[in-house]
């Protein structure tokens, strides 16, 4: 019998106490182990699907969508969401939003084709963005998709397309404006204050080759000011009411774009994102009450379209990863190297992601630099994060990574990993397979004279 019971080991640590310097405020997140996602153990997910791994919760996506939709639908009679494909265009994700009733919002032919293949009817695919070729226009016009015109050159080329096809495109113009928030996103669309937007509207109406069905704006992203939306809504409503007054044309929809903040913490702010991000209700209140008071007759209230991206999906995405090594930097700081970096977690450039250990952890914590595995200096996941003592092989969960990572990830140095969706019954589904060397090299071809060498 073993009599010599050994003590449970914990790595020795010592931490300087800074008297006189108050701690950053906000809750100390990330020390509670996060062992399960929607009932499935992180350990099992990694065992089955490997590490690193993206995990999405269908339940959270649906709940978040329903919360956002009802925040608007309870305040305004006529609301339509359009899923912003670039935020996360995994087909499984798009189809959850489409099942919930969202249209598609795309900014490239690639995304447009994806939406069509997913089965979205052409007239429910909103085609945004500055990059549309003549062929893109042709296809969108044939499919009766609303085309949001970004600049005068697009307006003219679309006019030519409409002449060629003998068909009237359904269009909106993208409007940019001063909403009191800097920076003004004036690089997209036509400016409101300078009269460019009105000039574009006149041009469309007077040339009479297209149907001006809507007005669009997207005033920025991660907008913490809800008031900016009241300003934007008022300016959009003003344009629509002027069009009605001068030409008798009813603008069918106002598309307020995206931009609601998710509950992530922005870099360089001491405020915890979950505490400062306005709720859907606060955004909805500003937009809907402005629209209702703007002066439309109640039977003429336009359809309100929203292209909310990150706020609908960030919470539903997790990145699971594993500690590769610990190091001590020359200045004494501790560094931990993870098996995921900015190649997969593009949003690490903007956010201080919350990271939790995935197993029982020590109560002692250490300030650590969190590096990714790339041989590149830029590969920093967190510049400084207080974490329980982590050892090689320990697993972590990165929270709120659903938006922009599974689309902006880079195939750089390593291959992209599996993506798993956990359905509402708690069953995991592989929705995108990890890339392989064969998959990546199939598009390459090596000229004959470079096919062999002798070393």
């Amino acid at each position, binding site marked *: 019998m073993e009599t010599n019971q*050994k*003590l*449970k*080991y*914990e*790595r*020795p*640590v*010592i*931490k*300087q*106490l800074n*008297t006189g310097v108050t701690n950053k405020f906000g809750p100390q997140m990330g020390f509670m182990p996060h062992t399960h996602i929607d009932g499935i153990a992180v350990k099992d997910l990694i065992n089955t699907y490997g590490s690193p791994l993206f995990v999405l919760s269908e339940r959270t996506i649906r709940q978040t969508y329903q919360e956002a939709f009802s925040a608007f639908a309870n305040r305004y009679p006529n609301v339509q969401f359009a899923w912003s494909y670039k935020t996360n265009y995994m087909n499984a994700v798009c189809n959850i939003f489409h099942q919930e009733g969202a249209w598609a919002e795309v900014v490239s032919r690639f995304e447009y084709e994806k939406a069509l293949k997913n089965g979205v009817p052409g007239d429910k695919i909103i085609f945004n963005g500055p990059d549309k070729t003549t062929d893109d226009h042709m296809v969108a016009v044939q499919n009766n998709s609303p085309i949001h015109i970004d600049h005068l050159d697009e307006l003219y080329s679309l006019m030519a397309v409409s002449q060629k096809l003998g068909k009237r495109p359904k269009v909106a113009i993208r409007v940019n404006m001063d909403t009191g928030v800097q920076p003004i996103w004036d690089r997209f669309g036509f400016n409101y204050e300078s009269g460019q937007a009105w000039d574009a509207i006149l041009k469309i109406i007077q040339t009479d080759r297209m149907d001006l069905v809507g007005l669009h704006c997207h005033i920025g992203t991660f907008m913490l000011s809800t008031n900016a939306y009241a300003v934007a809504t008022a300016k959009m409503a003003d344009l629509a009411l002027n069009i009605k007054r001068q030409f008798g044309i009813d603008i069918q929809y106002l598309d307020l774009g995206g931009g609601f903040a998710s509950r992530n913490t922005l870099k360089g702010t001491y405020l915890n994102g979950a505490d400062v991000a306005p709720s859907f209700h606060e955004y909805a209140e500003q937009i809907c009450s402005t629209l209702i008071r703007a002066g439309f007759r109640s039977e003429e209230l336009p359809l309100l379209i929203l292209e909310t991206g990150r706020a609908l999906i960030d919470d539903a995405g997790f990145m699971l990863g594993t500690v590769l090594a*610990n190091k*001590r930097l020359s200045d*004494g700081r501790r560094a931990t190297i993870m098996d995921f970096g900015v190649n997969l977690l593009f949003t690490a450039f903007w956010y201080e992601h919350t990271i939790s250990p995935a197993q029982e952890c*020590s109560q*002692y914590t250490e300030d650590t630099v969190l590096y990714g595995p790339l041989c590149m200096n830029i590969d920093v996941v967190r510049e400084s994060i207080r974490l329980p003592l982590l*050892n090689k092989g320990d697993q972590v969960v990165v929270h709120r990574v659903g938006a922009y990572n599974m689309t902006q990830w880079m195939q750089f140095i390593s291959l992209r990993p599996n993506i798993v969706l956990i359905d509402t019954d708690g069953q995991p589904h592989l929705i995108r397979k990890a890339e392989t060397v064969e998959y990546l090299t199939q598009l390459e071809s090596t000229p004959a004279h470079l096919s062999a060498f002798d070393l």
Partner: protein
Amino acid sequence: MKLRKSVAVSENGFVFNASRGDSFSANPTGARILDWLRDGKSEEEMKTLLLDLYDIDETTCEKDLYDFLKVLKQHNLLDV
């Protein structure tokens, strides 16, 4: 390698270096090693002690001890 005379370690892991006015907090493993350092134990001796006391493998023990001693030096807690 020895703990500086000016360094006091309390039972609950509170560490105070009187010569500089710095204070620290160590976890129980850390505090134990500080005690051994005060007694003048060598790195090799401390490793043996850790392996006897705790449920760990030799590599982890060696890596962690090495790292911990580096941090103590960085914080000016050791006479070298």
